[in-house]
């Protein structure tokens, strides 16, 4: 069962500290860019709960990300609501409900069926937004105003400020990390890991496997919704592509490349992949080609992702004394 080693914990604290201090020297553009990376890190982390811990490979996770963006867009543009006190619960609620519905249908299957069904059901949501004139169709729509967060006249958070948005994203990322860490240490988390290892045995022990999976699916969807809310606040733009299967595939790449089944892996994956994409794009217009080669190389040679690479390096550094012990 998952434990955080001391070294990993130190690395985490250092990384968080670095991110907290980054705006001191990072220029405006990179503050924006790192905000985006953190949103995707959160998004990837939510998927990892399914893929890495519950063993549920969802190829439709972007649906929950995108639906939160559209929930914000709808409320702001169509109803004039801007208060985050309404927008945030609405975004999370929309994602949670979509996740409950899609999850309920999908978890009745497993393995490869699950992959295909999540993919197809998410496409259904994609087409819904893609086809409806009301939601801006294929063009998508700008979100007319940024969310506001105020108590009376007191503005608690200015969503228009890139800096405050940056720290909001950082706080959400850290918060989600802690939340997931807590979940994974609870009996629920143990159940999840047990289900991935041996579903039938868990049933015989008395676990309602479907229920545990559905709860995990809804939590993951809701966290993706949180990422979606931040994306809406950050980009103020809603487009059907956010729900599409390419987006789902992309976030899966972040998770696997970073290392699934660890909480920090997806974060690592988001930083590495998004920065690399940005770098490749400066090299050539054919950067997707490089990205494809890169993805394949990772699958072939780094099946445990970057986190696995780190673990291997760390265990080498620790010496061989222990590993000889009990195999």
């Amino acid at each position: 069962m998952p434990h955080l080693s001391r070294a990993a914990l130190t690395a985490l604290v250092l990384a968080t500290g670095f991110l907290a201090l980054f705006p001191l020297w990072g220029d405006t553009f990179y503050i924006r860019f790192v905000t985006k990376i953190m949103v995707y890190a959160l998004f990837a982390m939510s998927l990892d709960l399914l893929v890495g811990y519950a063993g549920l490979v969802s190829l439709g996770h972007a649906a929950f990300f995108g639906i939160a963006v559209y929930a914000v867009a709808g409320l702001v543009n169509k109803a004039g609501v801007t208060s985050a006190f309404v927008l945030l619960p609405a975004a999370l609620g929309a994602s949670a409900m979509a996740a409950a519905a899609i999850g309920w249908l999908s978890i009745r299957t497993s393995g490869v069926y699950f992959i295909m069904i999540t993919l197809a059901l998410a496409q259904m949501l994609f087409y819904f937004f893609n086809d409806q004139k009301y939601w801006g169709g294929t063009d998508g729509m700008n979100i007319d105003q940024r969310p506001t967060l105020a108590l009376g006249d007191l503005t608690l958070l200015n969503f228009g400020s890139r800096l405050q948005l940056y720290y909001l994203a950082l706080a959400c990322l850290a918060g989600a990390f802690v939340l997931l860490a807590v979940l994974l240490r609870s009996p629920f988390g143990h159940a999840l890991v047990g289900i991935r290892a041996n579903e039938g045995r868990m049933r015989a022990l008395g676990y309602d496997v479907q229920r545990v999976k559905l709860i995990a699916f809804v939590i993951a969807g809701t966290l993706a919704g949180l990422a979606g809310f931040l994306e809406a606040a950050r980009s103020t733009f809603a487009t059907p592509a956010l729900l599409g299967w390419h987006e789902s595939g992309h976030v899966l790449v972040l998770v696997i490349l970073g290392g699934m089944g660890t909480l920090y892996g997806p974060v690592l994956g988001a930083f590495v992949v998004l920065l690399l994409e940005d770098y490749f794009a400066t090299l050539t217009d054919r950067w997707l080609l490089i990205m494809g080669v890169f993805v394949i190389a990772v699958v072939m040679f780094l099946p445990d992702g970057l986190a696995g690479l780190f673990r291997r390096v760390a265990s080498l550094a620790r010496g061989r004394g222990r590993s000889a012990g009990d195999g």
Partner: protein
Amino acid sequence: MTLRTRRRFLAGAGAGLGVAAAGGFVPTRFAIGQKAKLKIGLMLPYTGTYAALGHNITDAMKMRLAEAGNKLGGREYDIVQLDDESAPPKGKDNAARLLVREKCDMLIGTVHSGVVLAMAQVAKEEDKFLVIPNAGAVDLTRKGCTPKLFRTSFSNWQPAFPCGDVALKDGAKTAVLMTWNYPAGHDSLQGFKDSFTKGGGKILKEILIDFPNVEFQAGLTEIASLKPDCVYVFFAGAGALKFMKDYEAAGLKAKISLYGPGFLTDGVYREAGSAASGIKTTLHYADDLDNPMNRKFRADFKKQTNRDCDVYAVQGYDTGTFLVQGLQAVQGDLGADKALVKAWEASKIDSPRGMFTLSKSHDPVQDIYLRQVWGGEEKYLGVAHKALADPGTGCTMA
């Protein structure tokens, strides 16, 4: 001038076209408190489905800037070029990259309406000019219009509107409309509907196909059973080619005349062969427009790029003219934004498509031409509507 790439930074106008870049002259006026060079962010698709459009717009615009001596209002400039991949989710980030990271003074772009929506908002937030060399979504210059947003191409409504009159004149009383279920399609159908119903025509049905599906059979069967006098469609690229072929194969072409905006046939009528033959379309450009400027431009463009000129190249060229004239008026000072808005609003652009001016909502007021594919060529038939402006409904320039 340094040459960097991200998406390649092309310095000056000439690079890539073999035109010598301008030297290092800095007008004294800007020596203090002003950057010496203008920086223009060019965001267009250089990969993906719309890549050809992006390249034609870019190259033609640079051609025009080179003709003006690679100076804008006497100032040198750098062009920062960025591939938008026609990906709306990346629109905001890419626009921010140009305006915030590269500190561009203005933005030009792009083809995909969804991406422009995103760009427009970033440009507004950063209070920078945006010139649109293609995307025709009507909302951009209607309820989304802002003082610093200009379009040098067309609105989707524009080429469609005269088509209704053309169909009426040809004797059609009833029509079936068909398009992809997406904003450009809706805009275009509306244009046709406005004129066709005003002239007494009747729309029997609007058939929508989910974008970008190209399975048209169900729609064609419906058309056959409704038996309208004419059909108006908005499709482009792969869809347009396939639609024309399917329309012919379904035996409809001989019985029910097909109309569309020029995008239906442009670029694909040769591939379509007999399926395109005889189809009448309306557009703000025609290949064989008989004016000296068009003839010269087409020859020059072919020579410089070894590609055939098309309406997108013309729009790129005109965007160049637009920049040259406007910045001339303010002597290269993009900071003089009130004056520049005024100058641009008063523009008279001498274009291969003929002279055009700008409307109150910053759209071209231009002639729309009637063309017909005939004998493997797209032929100019005449002016379908003189000096047509988009109604600009809902534009308040707040």
